[in-house]
């Protein structure tokens, strides 16, 4: 039964309902939803990357007319918005979905249909946001949408509305998912897995869900106020009507700074899983890692105004936000030192995930240090809104999040697909990405301090920016090549055999104790946990590698039924916002239809039979 080449496909097919479009549209399986999140987010990531490439071509030479200013402004707005909301967040969500239940020894998330709903809302929100391109009216006011440029007076087109409604839709998805994973982690851990035995990825994900729950309502409120300003004539941010555009900045960054940690804490979690496994040594300072993560998240709500030093808040506010920001460097430093302590004295196995994880540490250090540089307001007055900042946050979000997510992709790919990725292509991907990344973003530090502001569609020759910009564009093409290699790797290995064993890396956590890919019910028997590295402990007890596990038959295991009502409800949510956008054309009818569909979806969702025994579940749900 136990062989290294397993064909789970056969096992699934035996149940007769697991293939075809309909099975994906109605799935409530956290693993399939994870794959949907991952593939959708990766598509948007490539789209955002192409937008960046166009931006880099435009900036290759001074006074370039490759792009019009409108096109450039749309592209930089959509690049930022996409990478944050449609790429990095949902790529993290892919791992939340697929890995959290496996790592805590659960058979699914707490609310499987809510999980499907989150995905469908996310997909529709992402498509809605990008739909602006079809009408030549993609968002063009920056991902942070500062008022009062977003008022009807200064942005009469639908551009801002695509952005506003798109983000509101995406916010629904994020909040629903956050509730789901919060409850899952609190309630569904395997027997013996106390909070302080949770894998670090689960811990960091848990903290991320709390951040999402606290930060997203703020942006939702701000977006709704903006929507009322634009559609119903209110003046929350309109100075002529007594409103205050500065209020938007406070709203936005009270959400926006925690958002940075929403993007980067899951990355910290991934790195904290990869480093111990490939160093063959447990994570150094587990408790310190947990508390530093929590402390970073807590402080993250008290530093928002460091994005606003140039607004002139006065010395007291500047001092407070400056010192709070510097304070964040301490727990962040603790994390970096603990990661190095994990490697130190280990027996490092250089597989592709480890390359990316070490690349993450090296790059994230740079982003952290430049962050301390603009925690000092008098210095930040020069750095703010220049390419120095662009360099800084790309070292955090690309050198940090993307490197870590890529490490996670190579690490968990065998578990998710049942196939090993090619190591040589993986390492080629790493080197191209490391070089391309640094060639693109390191010169931005210099070009920024030497006077190049952000969000400018072109620059004059006499300011001297050309040479470094050309270098940056070259780097962007190397990055393009790096991700092409990744695509080739995925494509090539997907045609190969299902050759991934259950535990290819000598893993420490529960997901490696079950077949790759796992059966729909994940664990034939609910695992019992006795320590922080449960699988290592089992292997030690039994004196070495475990035999390839059997997937089991799933007999007697309760599995949620497939359901299309989450999809219907998601269409209702999107329809509601489309209705608001068309309110001046169709009157309230669009909104009414959207709400009706949403109500229909939720009503049927509530009254359908949610669970049945796997073996007896009927295809298609009810």
């Amino acid at each position, binding site marked *: 039964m136990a062989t290294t080449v397993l064909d789970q496909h056969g096992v699934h097919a035996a149940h007769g309902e697991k293939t075809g479009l309909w099975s994906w549209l109605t799935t409530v399986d956290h693993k399939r939803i994870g794959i949907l999140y991952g593939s959708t987010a990766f598509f948007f990531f490539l789209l955002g990357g192409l937008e960046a490439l166009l931006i880099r071509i435009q900036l290759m030479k001074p006074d370039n007319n490759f792009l019009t*200013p409108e096109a450039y402004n749309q592209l930089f707005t959509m690049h930022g918005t996409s990478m944050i909301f449609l790429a990095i967040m949902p790529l993290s969500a892919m791992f939340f979905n697929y890995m959290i239940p496996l790592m805590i020894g659960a058979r699914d998330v707490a609310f499987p249909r809510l999980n499907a709903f989150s995905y469908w809302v996310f997909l529709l929100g992402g498509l809605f946001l990008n739909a602006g391109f079809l009408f030549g009216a993609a968002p063009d006011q920056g991902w942070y949408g500062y008022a009062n440029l977003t008022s009807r007076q200064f942005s009469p087109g639908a551009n801002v509305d695509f952005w506003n409604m798109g983000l509101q839709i995406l916010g629904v998805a994020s909040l629903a998912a956050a509730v789901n994973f919060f409850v899952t982690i609190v309630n569904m851990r395997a027997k013996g897995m106390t909070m302080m035995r949770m894998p670090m990825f689960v811990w960091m994900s848990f903290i991320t869900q709390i951040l999402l729950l606290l930060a997203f309502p703020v942006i939702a409120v701000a977006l709704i106020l903006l929507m009322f300003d634009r559609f119903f004539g209110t003046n929350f941010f309109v100075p002529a009507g007594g409103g205050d555009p500065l209020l938007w900045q406070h709203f936005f960054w009270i959400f926006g700074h925690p958002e940075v940690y929403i993007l980067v804490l899951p990355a910290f979690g991934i790195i904290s899983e990869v480093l111990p496994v490939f160093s063959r040594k447990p994570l150094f300072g587990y408790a310190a890692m947990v508390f530093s993560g929590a402390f970073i998240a807590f402080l993250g709500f008290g530093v928002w105004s460091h994005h606003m030093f*140039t607004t002139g808040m*006065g010395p007291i506010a500047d001092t407070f936000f*400056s010192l709070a920001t510097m304070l964040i460097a*301490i727990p962040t*430093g603790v994390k970096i030192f603990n990661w190095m302590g994990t490697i130190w004295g280990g*027996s490092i196995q250089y597989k592709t995930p480890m390359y990316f994880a070490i690349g993450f540490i090296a790059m994230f250090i740079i982003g952290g240090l430049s962050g301390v540089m603009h925690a000092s307001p*008098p210095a930040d007055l020069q750095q703010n809104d220049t390419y120095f900042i662009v360099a800084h946050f790309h070292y955090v979000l690309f050198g940090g999040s993307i490197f870590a997510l890529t490490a996670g992709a190579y690490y968990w790919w065998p578990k998710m697909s049942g196939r090993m990725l090619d190591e040589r292509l993986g390492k080629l991907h790493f080197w191209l990405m490391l070089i391309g990344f640094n060639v693109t973003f390191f010169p931005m530090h210099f070009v920024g301090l030497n006077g190049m*502001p952000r969000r400018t569609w072109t620059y004059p020759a006499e300011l001297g920016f050309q040479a470094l910009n050309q270098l940056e564009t070259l780097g962007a093409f190397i990055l393009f090549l790096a991700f092409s290699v990744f695509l080739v790797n995925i494509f090539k290995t997907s045609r190969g055999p299902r050759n991934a064993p259950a535990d290819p890396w000598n893993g420490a956590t529960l997901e490696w104790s079950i077949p790759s890919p796992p059966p729909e019910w994940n664990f034939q028997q609910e695992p019992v946990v006795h320590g922080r590295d449960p699988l290592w402990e089992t292997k030690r007890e039994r004196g070495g590698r475990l035999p390839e596990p059997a997937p089991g038959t799933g007999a007697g295991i309760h599995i949620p039924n497939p359901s299309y009502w989450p999809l219907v409800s998601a269409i209702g949510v999107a329809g509601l916002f489309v209705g608001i956008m068309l309110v001046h054309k169709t009157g309230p009818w669009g909104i009414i239809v959207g709400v009706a569909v949403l109500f229909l979806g939720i009503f049927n969702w509530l009254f359908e039979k949610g669970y049945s025994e796997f073996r007896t579940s009927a295809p298609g749900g009810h």
Partner: protein
Amino acid sequence: MHARTAAARRLTGLVPFLVLLALVVAGCNPERYPQTALLPLSDYAKIGDHLQDLTFFWAVGVFVLVEGALLYAIFRFRGRPDDAEPPQIHGNTTIEIIWTLIPALILAAIAVPTVRGIFETNAHPSGDVLKIQVIGHQWWWEFRYPEYNVTTANELHVPVGKTVELLQESADVIHSFWPPRFAGKRDVFPARQTRMWFKADSAGLFPGQCAEFCGIQHARMAFQVRASNPAEFDGWVAHMKTLGPPKPAVAAPAADSIKTASAGATVQGPQAKPQVPQAKADSAAPASQDPEYAKGEQLFKMKGCIGCHSLQAVDAPKGMIGPNLATVGSRAYIAAGWLKNTDENLEHWIREPQTVKKGVLMPNLGVTVEESKALRAYLRAHQ
């Protein structure tokens, strides 16, 4: 032995990157960048620059140590799959406390001067201070000198050695005023005043630009700071004070014919002999004698230019949509610090503003080549 050669090979592999790094470092020499923030020319900018140097110093030190330790670890602790399991260390409280405290101490070393810098830069300048109003418009800058009752646009004149305080506001959306050689940026809001100050310590012409995204032509919302010696600055002020409003008596007749319009004495200001050292127009014949000038003057009204642009520096009206043109002829740049103020550029700009700076609030007014030459002549005379 084998490990050592492999390591050496890895190091030689680094050579191209070192070469690249050298090129990058060479490309970063701030002298090559007129808009650099790294060569401050005022007391205010030096406060920030000093703090930046301080944090940079610490950042480089931490970078070298931590990345060095990381590099050491990834070479030193390479393992093979069949190696014995390394010692399973879960942590070390003493070390963890040490590496929490050391960053805290470094941050304290940065925080103390930072707080001092915050209070210095936020202080109200006292003593002999020249107040200048900075008004951001989509996509140009208005500078008003209430003390002298004069106004100009896109070229901020400041005296060397005297503190200027900028009182900033926006006419439309949020902008950010950024003259990097003299100060960091300060955002400019509608219906909210922000301030900043600096004392220039060198004379010259230095670029700056808007640093807050403010719409389609945010990239082309630049300006120049002209810092001049006190005598020169006083001369400029004296000259500006002569650029008053046109005399009421010569309110233009309904301009049905350019030819019959009374050329010359309609606008007093521009024809006044500039008294300033940098003025170059002394040798020119009075502009009023130039038929192109007269034609341009008519066109300036007929084409509607006058609806958005004021030509008087003294008592300049507030709330104009376009920049004040009282001294446009002598400015180094046009189109908000974007184009060199050559005759060719000025004519092109007048003819096709939507080609030169797409989305700008000045529409293409159907100005012919001939007309643009006349308008150029007229505006050029506004020194």
